[in-house]
């Protein structure tokens, strides 16, 4: 009964925190590294 909570697309076995790559309540998979915002120097924003 109920949901298989291990099938909701979260890496529950991760030894690190998983919220930094949480892609949102509707996403079936965590963020990819390039999806996570990173604050580099503003000059690097070229496009």
């Amino acid at each position, binding site marked *: 009964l109920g949901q298989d909570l291990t099938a909701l697309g979260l890496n529950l076995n991760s030894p690190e925190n998983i919220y930094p790559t949480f*892609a*949102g309540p*509707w*996403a079936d998979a965590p963020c*990819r*590294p*390039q*999806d*996570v*915002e*990173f604050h*580099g*120097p503003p*000059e*690097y*924003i*070229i*496009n």
Partner: protein
Amino acid sequence: PLGPVPLSKDHQFQFTMLESAFLHLPHPSDSERIKLYLPRNPCSTPHYYNQGPLPHSDSLEFFQRLSTETLFFIFYYMEGSKAQYLAAKALKKQSWRFHTKYMMWFQRHEEPKLINEEYEQGTYIYFDYEKWGQRKKEGFTFEYKYLE
């Protein structure tokens, strides 16, 4: 033993509104900075393509082992990501300098005062935006040989 509780009129309204909101759900990209080259909805690729980041790929050491062309590619196409930042660090370790005014990279150790036609070829890249834009028409050659 509690049995169902009938929904009140107020609940019915709330459900109706939820139902209409269901028709235009937020998209993950709505919560993030606009990314021109990294679409949030990944296109489907064959499963035997590498689907996840390589081990230790978010370390400077890893990036230092990438070719300079790859580092340039990452820097310009993966804007705003950690990979861009690490690519910039790796380029700097190869004595590349980023010139904020022209948003370009140079490999000379001191910054050029002026960029124009008389600019010496040599251990650096001469990168002319306008020409780059014309490259299809005039067959632009990318002064590249010292990098190889």
